[in-house]
């Protein structure tokens, strides 16, 4: 549904997006993660045919963003960072305007359908300037899906919303996903990305990595075994743990009482956890609990973005 090859955009000497290769399948929810200024919004603008690439090519819903941007724009829906609604107009007038630009037939029926779905129909005749942020965001989503686009771009859809409003937006994204809509989701919210996205791309000018959340976690962050120990804790015990062959690395910290919490990276967690517990008991430690710690997507994200930052800084110095 979306294919980009070597897509890039510069503004003067500033490189906003560079060598972006991307394939998003029909019905897929693709998360675009990256820090501020990473090029997420520029990527969305390139893929929606709003701005032209300075290098590379991309097709969206079968149309080239370079040669047929108007056809691309007819096939996509976009939720921008801010709702961008006409605040003096009511919900129906806002949607009618965009529906007319999309040349929808049965527009009034469709407006009723989307407003009802987003629980806004009963407020349809109020100027949206008086609405809450959550309601405005829902109306902006209604506008984005009004013409049943093949691809939906959502830029920070839950940014600044209260938890309840954010949950309703996430539920809507899940529904759209179930209906087969291809969605590109730009977000800072890693938990949201993990819950909603089939695949995630981590962007910092370049696409650093693309994969499923689970694979990213497995590949980039080492799982840890967390052992809570009772007193006593000795430096001798610490030295002995460091010497055990199945322990690759570990960190210990006081747990608030007299006990300690160990975070241990094992060579083979499935096989070595019993050996670790046995060795601790034999060394005189009092084991209170043992648990696997799943590495977070946040850790992966920070590692990748941090490494890219270090590379860039190194490149700049040379």
């Amino acid at each position, binding site marked *: 549904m979306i294919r980009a090859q070597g897509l890039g955009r510069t503004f003067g000497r500033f490189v906003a997006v560079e060598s972006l290769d991307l394939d998003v399948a029909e019905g897929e929810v693709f998360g675009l993660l990256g820090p501020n200024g990473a090029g997420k919004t520029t990527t969305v603008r390139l893929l929606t045919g*709003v*701005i032209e690439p300075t290098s590379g090519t991309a097709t969206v819903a079968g149309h080239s963003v370079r040669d047929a941007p108007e056809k691309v724009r007819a096939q996509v829906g976009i939720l*921008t960072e*801010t709702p961008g609604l006409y*605040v003096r107009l009511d919900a129906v*007038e806002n949607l009618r*305007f965009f529906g*007319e630009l*999309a040349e929808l037939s049965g527009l009034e029926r469709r407006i009723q359908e989307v407003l009802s779905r987003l629980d806004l129909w009963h407020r349809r005749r109020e100027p949206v300037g008086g609405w809450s942020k959550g309601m405005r965001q829902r109306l902006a989503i209604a506008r984005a899906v009004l013409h049943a686009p093949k691809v939906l771009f959502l830029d920070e859809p839950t940014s600044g919303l209260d938890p309840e409003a954010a949950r309703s937006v996430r539920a809507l994204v899940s529904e759209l996903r179930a209906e087969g809509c291809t969605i590109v989701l730009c977000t800072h919210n890693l938990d949201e990305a993990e819950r909603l996205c089939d695949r995630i791309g981590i962007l910092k000018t370049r696409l650093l990595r693309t994969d499923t959340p689970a694979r990213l976690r497995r590949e980039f962050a080492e799982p840890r075994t967390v052992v809570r120990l009772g007193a006593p804790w000795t430096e001798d015990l610490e030295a002995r743990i460091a010497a055990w062959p199945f322990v690759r690395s570990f960190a210990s910290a006081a747990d608030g009482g007299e006990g300690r919490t160990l975070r241990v990276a094992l060579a083979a967690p499935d096989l070595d956890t019993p050996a670790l517990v046995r060795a601790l008991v034999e060394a005189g430690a009092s084991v209170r609990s043992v648990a696997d710690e799943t590495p977070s997507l946040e850790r992966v994200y920070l590692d990748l973005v941090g490494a890219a930052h270090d590379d860039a800084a190194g490149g700049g110095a040379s």
Partner: protein
Amino acid sequence: MNVRHVRAVLRREALELRRNRLVALTMAILPTALVASAVATTAFIARTPEGEFRGDVPAGLAPQLRALGHGRDALLGLVADQYLYMLLLIALALPSTIAAHAIVGEKVERTLEPLLATPIATSDLLLGKCLAAVVPATLITQLGYVLTVAGFAWTCPPSVVALTCRPVWPLAFGLVVPALAMLSALASIVASSRVNDPRTAQGLVGFLVIPVIGAGISSVMGRLFLDVGHLAWGALGVLVLDTAVLWLAVKLFSREAILTRWK
């Protein structure tokens, strides 16, 4: 051109204009003040005894005004004619008020990006925004002319009223005013697509009033008495300028410059 897209933009702009009381008020002030001033000034002159005007009217007046006599009626004719020139300026001033906000205003309210992400063509968007400025400005200017002439009919003698109804003025307000309003709107859109502030855009468009003011001054100096021939040449010039500025507007209006450079 996609008529549905142009109509959609026009309808939305009209809805917003109707609900933006500040802009509506700004639009109403200038024509109301001009019409009231025209009627009040001519009423004041008409009430002054004829005898007090002998020798006070410049001898260099256009022959058509001198034909009214060298006293009060000639002065009334001159003042009435000048007010009609001033009314023409409304057709230049009002569209720039509306159109300068047309692009910059959307950027400020952050409504531009969702709009630019729709399939609407640049030319259709510009045309819709232009018409949204031209239609009300034209109607207000024409209404201003009708009310002013009605006021003159109440304050001035028939010979002066006949002067303000001579074919050139209905033709000017009927045909040239829409073209002037279009020129002002297009120039405002060109300016507002290149600057970050609607006030700057309006300021740049201020230069357009110079030819109209020049015509008014020439009339006072007796060098010009507007007739259909002058109007035809003027109208041709405005149409040529309209075409050139429309071409320039489409060339200069860049979606991405507006989205990425405007802060």
